[in-house]
């Protein structure tokens, strides 16, 4: 028998209405309030305890409430957590999602709640737990019960989950690998035939719309500016002391170039797997033109050169990692009073 911990609010926990919204969290053995509507439909699992907490108390004391939840999780050691459902309720929605997120993240226990699609909690927390698609108000509970318990029963039995669409939960936005029955070429040709006939087809990858990055305004006086050099071309000190990856880098590095006027062959090299490195190894300045920057500094064209190389491998790097690198590099450069950056790619 799998153990399920249930979370609900003052209203569904049958304490009272708005006047009880400041009720501090407490726990009761077994199902209480609306948990009783779900309990009979669970197969192979039982609700071992129900946490009840007032909505106002939760949103104003999130840390204290989560501390309480933590204690109960450690006491009851549940296999699954169910919360709500909160339908279109704002505070209760946040509370359910916060509890789910906390427990799923820290204890790797699957957590399930249910929200109406317009509930702001959907966008905020869909990546952190299972949020089932339920109706706007508690009047739709009859539909919500079989949907949520059916899904929880699959989690209990370990049955393979369908797609978010089939299971009616909001997609977390996570891409996971699967093996299809047919190979990619067969699927491509089938998709094309449907598209040509004007029949419905489903793309396997929705196109993302990217934020357009506007170029910064030009520097007013280059001769007073401090310029830094960054590259995604995988240029590192020879021998790759920090084991920079050839692809899918998870970090960037900052190397001191104090006292150097150039990135010389044998002192630096490329570890990037995404381009022909022969010419970059012969002269690493071809990818990260530090020599040119130093010459411009000597000629007075630019004020000064930041004496570091900020580098990573931009090869099969996910947009999320690349964005993080950019933010971290910008922090470093801002702290050093850098005015402008030459960023080279390959």
């Amino acid at each position, binding site marked *: 028998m799998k153990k399920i911990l249930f979370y609900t609010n003052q209203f569904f926990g049958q304490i009272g209405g708005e006047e009880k919204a400041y009720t501090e969290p407490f726990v009761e053995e077994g199902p209480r309030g609306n948990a009783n509507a779900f309990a009979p439909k669970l197969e192979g699992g039982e609700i071992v305890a129900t946490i009840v907490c007032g909505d106002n108390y939760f949103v104003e004391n999130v840390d204290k409430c989560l501390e309480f939840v933590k204690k109960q999780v450690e006491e009851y050691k549940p296999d699954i957590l169910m919360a709500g459902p909160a339908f279109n309720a704002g505070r209760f929605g946040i509370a359910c999602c916060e509890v789910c997120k906390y427990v799923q993240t820290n204890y790797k226990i699957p957590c399930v709640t249910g929200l109406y699609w317009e509930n702001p909690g959907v966008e905020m927390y869909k990546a952190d737990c299972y949020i089932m698609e339920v109706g706007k108000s508690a009047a739709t509970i009859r539909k919500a019960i079989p949907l949520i318990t059916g899904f929880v029963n699959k989690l209990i039995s370990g049955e393979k989950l369908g797609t978010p669409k089939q299971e009616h939960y909001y997609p977390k936005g996570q891409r*996971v690998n699967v093996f*299809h029955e047919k190979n990619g*070429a067969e699927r*491509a040709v089938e998709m094309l035939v449907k598209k040509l006939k004007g029949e419905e087809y489903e793309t396997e990858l929705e196109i993302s719309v990217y934020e357009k990055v506007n170029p910064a305004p030009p520097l007013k006086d280059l001769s007073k500016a401090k310029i830094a050099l960054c590259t995604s071309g995988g240029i590192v000190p020879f021998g790759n002391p920090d*084991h920079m990856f050839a692809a*899918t880098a*998870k970090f960037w590095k900052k190397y001191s170039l104090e006292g150097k006027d150039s990135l010389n062959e044998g002192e630096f090299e490329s570890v990037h*797997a995404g*381009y022909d490195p022969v010419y970059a190894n012969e002269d690493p300045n071809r990818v990260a033109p530090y020599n040119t920057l130093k010459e411009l500094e000597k000629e007075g064209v630019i004020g000064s050169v930041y004496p570091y190389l900020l580098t990573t491998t931009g090869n099969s790097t*996910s947009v999320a990692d690349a964005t993080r690198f950019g933010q971290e590099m910008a922090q470093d450069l801002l702290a050093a009073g850098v005015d402008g950056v030459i960023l080279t790619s390959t």
Partner: protein
Amino acid sequence: MKLELRKIAIKDVCFDKECKIVDGCLHVDPAKLEDLVLEDSRVKSVSFDLARPGESVRIVPVKDVIEPRAKLEGGETFPGLFREDMQEAGEGITYALSGCAVTTTGPIVGFQEGVIDMSGPGAEYTVYSQINHVVMIIEKQDYVDQHDHEAVVRLAGIKVARFLGTVGFDCEDYESEVYEWKSIGEKYAEYPGLPKVVYVYNCMAQGLLHDTYFYGRDAKVMVPTMITPLEVMDGALVSGNCVSPGSKTTTYMHQNNAVIKELFKIHGKEINFVGIVLNPLMTTLKEKFRDRMLTVRQVKMLGADGAIISQEGFGNPTTDLMIVCQELEQNGIKTVLISNEDAGVDGMSEPLPDSVQEANAIVSTGNSNATVMLPAMEKTIGNIKEVERVCGGNVNSIQEDGRLLLEIHGIMGSHNLQGNTKLGAVTI
């Protein structure tokens, strides 16, 4: 143009004193193959090993995989590589030893060589685990530089594959497949009521380990060109061992191009397969725009109603994929793309580095950043240590107990971009 492919199903491989095929088993004389490879004075040493489906064997770092094919009449396979004169490929009779391959390994050339597991979870990710491998372990002379190193390995692999193909000439146990390719006017007249489909065949053209050879010519010095599927089967396209292992279009994947295979299956029934445009993927934006213009123009000249674009590599080539798709769609040509994704190890990142709104029909061959733990194998052919330096591997890849933590794109052919893989990705 007419090509008869005589496919011999190779079910096993073994070493012997002579090369022959007996009851579906390819007997290989390693001494004969070594002599052939050592004709090139740039080779310091060469040896051969065998790997069969289901064995506890890992081959690493793999450079190319080549299906043995040879021509009985009508020229030679892999034309333009070894001789000054050449005859157009795709005509006559070609023997193909299906179910086996010549697979090249040896010290690393760049960082683009991958892993093939013949059993276990890694085997599920690649069609290469399903075939018998004659593995060539090749070392270059010390004076040979990186670019020549790649050429030495590439040519040696092709040479051996071409030779092993001729072993099939004496074998009568083959299945015959006949392919015909007619002029565009005849094609129109043949199936006037069917939608006309063109295949846009992207291939890498970006330098060491990022190249493709067409009749021996480096694709970097080509512009988009109309080609026939029949010449592709005959080895007109040879891999320059390019890009990350997962998406590398090996010579095997050219010879057995999955998109061509599927288009032929429904040609004359649901579509009229009217042509292929080979599109080199160059590094600079100027070349990308030029190649888009010339590719789209040729697709239009062929009168296409629909197109499939297959891909090679990821990152800057995604721009080629997207801009060609955009212009085809804007010209009213319904387009489907094949691409892998780099959605991050956790799958939570945006999956593509470039996009256009017109790309509304995409087949995904999986998230290449996802990791897989591969069990230790009883035998390694090649050098496991190289995993630390290749695409998909890193210094933390080799576990103390011999297991291997690898990103999917470190496995040869895992997300093949002609769609010769069942791997895909879905959003949860």
